[in-house]
C-alpha cells in the first residue's frame, strides 16, 4: 500500500520510471494521463488481479487474433510487438493464437505461421503443427486408405458386376442375334408352314373338287375293270393307312362301284369302311401303279381315264371344310395343273400322305407314285405329242393339206 501512496506522491518522471521497471510500455506521463498510468502500474504491481490494461489487452487480442487467424495472422502478431515493447503478454497471446490457429487453419497456413513465429516459440509451435498437421493428413490418409480398401472392396464387387454386365451385353447381342435368327427361322418356318398349309389347302380343294365330280364320274365310268375282294385277309399295312386316312363317304358308293367295275385283277382289301372317295377315280385300263409303301397292293391297272379330278381326290375329305377360300381353290387348281406334269413335289407329298389302304380302293393315291411311266400312255403320249406338234407347227392343217394332196394324187393315179 505504501507503494501505491508513493505512486500518488511521485512525480511524472518517477512514475514513468516505475512503469518502465514494471515492464509497462513507455508512455509519457502527463497530468491528463497520470491517473490512468498509475492505475496500470498499481495493477501490474498488485499481481495483475486489478483491472489493469494488460489482461484486457490480452483478452482483446485473443479475440482479435482468432478473428484474424486466417489471412491477417502476421499482422495480429506484429501489432502487439510494435505497441508493447518487451511485454510478456504478446508472447502469451501469440502462443494462444498459434494454438487456436492449429485447430482451425489448414496445414500450409500453420507452416507459414510457424515460420513467422519467434525462435523461442518455434519448438513448441513447430511441434504442435507438426503433430497437429499430420493428424489431419493422417486422417486424410487413413481416410483415403480406409476408403481405398473400401474401393478395393467395392472394386471386386464391381468387377464381377462388370464381368456380369459384359456377358449380359453379349447376351443381349446374342439374344438379339438369336432373336433375329429365331425370327428368321420363324419366318422361314412360317413360309414352310404356309407352303404346307397351301399344299394342304390345295389337297383339300382337290378332294372337294373330286368329291363334287364323284357322281358324274361314277356314272360315266362304266369301263372300270377293278376286281377286288371286298372281304379278304386284312393286309399288314392297313393300320398305317387307317391312321392317316379318314374316309367319309358311305360304303354304299364302293359297293355300287364294285358292282359297276369288272376287271381281271385282284386286290386285297381288308375292309371297305369308306371307299367312296376312291370311286371317283377314273383311269385307263392299262394303267399300272407300283408304290413303295404298298408293295403287296402295288400294281394294278384300270381302264379309267386319268383326269385332274382323279388326281385331286387323294386327300382327306375331313379337312375339306377348312379351306374354302377362293384363293386356296385357285392355288390348288394352279398346283393341280402342275401336278399333271408328274414332276412336282406336291404330287409326292400328296402321295406320302395318301390314303392308300383306307378305302376300298387303296390304289388311288398311288397313281402318281408309279415308278414307271404310264402304261396307258401310248395313246396319251401320242395325243400329247400330237398336241405339242399342233401347238408348235400347226400340223393338223398341214396334215390335212397333205392328205388332200395324197387323195388327189391317188385319184389322179387311179383315173389316169
Amino acid at each position, binding site marked *: 500500500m505504501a507503494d501505491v501512496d508513493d505512486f500518488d506522491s511521485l512525480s511524472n518522471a518517477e512514475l514513468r520510471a516505475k512503469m518502465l521497471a514494471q515492464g509497462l*510500455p513507455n*508512455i*509519457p506521463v*502527463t497530468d*491528463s*494521463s497520470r*491517473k*490512468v*498510468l498509475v*492505475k*496500470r502500474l498499481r495493477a501490474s504491481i498488485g499481481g495483475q488481479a486489478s483491472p489493469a*490494461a*494488460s489482461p*484486457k*489487452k490480452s483478452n*482483446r487480442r485473443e479475440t482479435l487474433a482468432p478473428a484474424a487467424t486466417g489471412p491477417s495472422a502476421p499482422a495480429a502478431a506484429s501489432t502487439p510487438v510494435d*505497441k508493447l515493447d518487451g511485454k510478456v503478454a504478446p508472447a502469451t497471446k501469440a502462443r494462444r493464437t498459434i494454438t487456436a490457429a492449429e485447430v482451425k487453419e489448414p496445414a500450409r497456413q500453420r507452416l507459414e505461421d510457424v515460420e513467422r513465429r519467434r525462435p523461442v516459440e518455434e519448438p513448441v509451435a513447430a511441434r504442435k503443427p507438426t503433430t497437429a498437421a499430420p493428424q489431419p493428413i493422417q486422417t486424410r490418409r487413413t481416410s483415403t486408405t480406409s476408403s481405398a480398401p473400401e474401393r478395393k472392396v467395392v472394386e471386386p464387387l464391381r468387377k464381377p458386376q462388370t464381368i456380369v454386365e459384359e456377358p449380359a451385353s453379349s447376351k443381349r447381342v446374342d439374344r438379339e442375334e438369336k432373336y433375329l435368327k429365331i425370327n428368321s427361322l420363324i419366318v422361314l418356318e412360317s413360309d414352310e408352314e404356309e407352303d404346307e398349309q397351301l399344299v394342304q389347302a390345295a389337297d383339300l380343294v382337290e378332294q372337294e373338287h373330286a368329291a363334287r365330280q364323284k357322281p358324274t364320274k361314277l356314272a360315266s365310268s362304266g369301263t372300270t375293270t377293278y376286281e377286288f375282294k371286298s372281304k379278304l385277309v386284312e393286309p399288314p399295312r392297313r393300320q398305317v393307312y387307317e391312321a392317316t386316312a379318314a374316309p367319309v363317304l358311305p360304303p354304299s358308293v364302293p359297293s355300287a362301284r364294285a358292282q359297276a367295275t369288272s376287271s381281271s385283277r385282284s386286290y386285297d382289301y381288308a375292309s371297305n369302311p369308306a371307299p367312296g372317295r376312291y370311286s371317283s377315280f377314273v383311269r385307263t385300263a392299262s394303267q399300272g401303279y407300283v408304290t413303295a409303301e404298298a408293295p403287296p397292293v402295288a400294281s394294278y391297272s384300270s381302264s379309267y381315264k386319268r383326269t385332274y379330278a382323279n388326281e385331286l381326290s387323294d386327300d382327306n375329305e375331313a379337312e375339306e371344310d377348312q379351306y374354302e377360300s377362293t384363293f386356296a381353290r385357285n392355288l390348288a387348281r394352279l398346283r393341280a395343273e402342275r401336278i399333271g406334269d408328274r414332276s412336282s413335289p406336291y404330287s409326292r407329298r400328296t402321295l406320302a400322305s395318301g390314303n392308300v389302304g383306307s378305302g376300298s380302293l387303296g390304289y388311288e393315291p398311288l397313281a402318281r407314285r408309279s415308278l414307271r411311266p404310264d402304261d396307258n400312255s401310248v395313246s396319251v403320249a401320242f395325243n400329247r405329242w400330237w398336241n405339242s406338234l399342233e401347238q408348235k407347227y400347226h400340223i393338223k392343217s398341214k396334215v390335212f393339206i397333205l392328205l388332200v394332196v395324197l387323195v388327189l394324187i391317188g385319184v389322179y393315179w387311179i383315173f389316169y
Partner: protein
Amino acid sequence: MSGTSQKYRNFVAEPMGNKSVTELAGIGETLGGRLTDAGFDKAYTVLGQYLVLKKDEELFKDWMKEVCHASSKQASDCYNCLNDWCEEFL
C-alpha cells in the same frame, strides 16, 4: 459488430480540423461537456491524448472512463473513430 454510425462516417470521412469534441463518435453533449470541462474541447485534443497514450486501446478507454465517465461502448466508439481517422489521415 453493428454497422458504423453516421457520426463515425462523417468524422472519418474528412480531416478533423477544428471540429468539436462532440463530433467524435460516442461523444455526446454530456461527455463533450465533461471533456470540455477537463480541457478537451476540441477533437484534436482528444486525438492528442490518444496519441500520448500511444494508441493503446485499453489505456485510452480507461482514460475516457476516468475523464468523462464514459461507458465501455462510448469509449470503444471514440477509440475506433480516432483509430480509423489516424489510419486514414495520419
